[in-house]
């Protein structure tokens, strides 16, 4: 199993989620996060004084799926969340040791 963790632009969430659920991926977890990448935020001016907005608001989505479906999920996320501008975000893929459905105790892929 794989865990796909993607940092995306907040306004792209609907598009990503629609495409993923259409493709049959059952679950998705979303959290509001703030962070910066290579650009180190950006500068603004408040009352005549320049300041740095270091942490830009982003969304983190997390998705667990079988190994063979991971590639397709990545394609969908990249396709739907890409604008081509700086700040589109990043995706990380992890191996998952196990998954357990709390209600029934099922484990492995059948718990997804």
């Amino acid at each position, binding site marked *: 199993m794989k865990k796909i963790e993607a940092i995306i632009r907040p306004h792209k969430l609907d598009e990503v989620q629609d495409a993923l659920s259409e493709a049959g991926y059952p679950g998705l977890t979303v959290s509001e996060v703030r962070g910066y990448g290579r650009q180190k935020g950006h500068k*603004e*001016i*408040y*009352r*005549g*004084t*320049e*300041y740095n907005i270091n942490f830009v608001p982003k969304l983190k989505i997390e998705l667990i799926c079988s190994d063979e479906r991971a590639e397709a999920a990545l394609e969908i996320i990249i396709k739907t969340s890409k604008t081509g501008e700086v700040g589109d975000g990043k995706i990380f893929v992890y191996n998952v040791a196990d998954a357990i459905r709390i209600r029934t105790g099922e484990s492995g892929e059948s718990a997804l």
Partner: protein
Amino acid sequence: MKGNNITALLLFIFLLLVVIAPSNSFADPDPSGANTGTINDVPAATAGQPTVEEVGAVAGHNKISINIMWTLVAGFLVMFMQAGFAMVETGFTRAKNVAHTMGMNFLVYAIGMIGFWISGFAFMFGGVGAIGALGGTPGLNSMFSIELFGKTFELVGYSGFFLNNAVYDVGVFTLFLFQMVFMDTTATIPTGSMAERWKFTAFIIYGFFISMIVYPLFGNWVWGGGWLADLGVNFGLGHGHVDFAGSSVVHLVGGVAALAGAIVIGPRIGKYTRDGKVNAIPGHNIPMAMVGTFILAFGWFGFNAGSTLAGTDLRIGVVATNTMIASGAGALVATIFMLIKFKKPDPSMMANGLLAGLVAITAPCAFVNSWASFVIGAIAGVLVVAAVFFIDHKLHIDDPVGAVAVHGVNGAWGVLSLGLFADGSYGDGWNGVAGGVKGLFYGDGGQFAAQLIGTLTCIIFVFALMYGFFKIQHKLFGIRVNAEDEVEGLDTPEMGVLGYDYSSGPEQK
């Protein structure tokens, strides 16, 4: 089913009684209102045939009724400005201090009110004499004065402490309510410049000091019949120091107190770093601050137009419109200034610009025409932005909300602008001087001199008193919270509760 029939029957009888029956036994209703209020409503010994005396009594009573009603309603509007101040100041500061900033803006209403009731009102208006617009206001007739240069200098009133029974009068009570909310506006201005680091208990002591002593003294000199008002009668300087609704009495006093406080308390941690770098500390809730600004602008109609103390003084139409025009000019010019300099308008400066226009027009609103109002507001819009930069970047005085730039700088500009632009169309008899109030541009340089003397007096007197007060208080008890609390946020250490608590609350056992 049977129940329904009875209900229907009762309804029918009811309609019969209410709608049809009265048309036979009473006078016709008057939906247009054109026939309501007739000679029959004038109390007369012979109904319907009042004498001239009886008509005159009603006319006089109605005039004072309109004036008292107007003054009270205007006072209620000004009272609501406390909410505006609370939102502006809290919006322009950080989320970790919201309960503290709100708390100060809330309690200043109660502190100021009680302080003004104890002694503030008596010092300020105790010697004002009769205010005809409110029916004569008896009892306010004790003024302490000294003789200088062969002239009488009236310095402080001393009747009406605790609104005692000697002034138990509808006119005096109306005057108290209206003047108390004005004083509260002054008292709440320093809570902005000293926000996010002021010890709450120290703030309480300050609240009594300014409402009981500082504000009333300067107020007496301008509005209570004191020596600045007498500059015209005594020294031939125009109509004396004229301030219609308080650019100096309310805003300059508050702005100067805010400056003294900000200097003594020092900048917030992290505002200025050792190498001389100036850091921005953005406000946490711009919508809150902008709504607060609108509430202030709404209340300002009461502030300025109400200052006639008379709904029968129809100059209120000019006053209210001038107030509106200056506020728009201030907001627009401040915005354009920011757009030219930084490419972005900065909502906090748009709000400051609107308020700057309002503060500036507060003194001259009754004495100028609309183009002068526009010019006064526009200059206020430039002044407020320039002053914010100067105070922050050059003086390194930390004023989180721009209180000194808005109320101090533009309070001074407001009273001075009256001395330039007053067009002579209003103010006959003001401060005991015949003829309309005229500024320098309309031929009366003496009026400008009186405005200048009033402005300098206000700055020197209030700064000396407030700086001294804050210094002594700081030496004796400390007026600033400790550094750990300031960094953590003042809500829990100072107030005992978080303003914003995003947890689901404490566990209940």
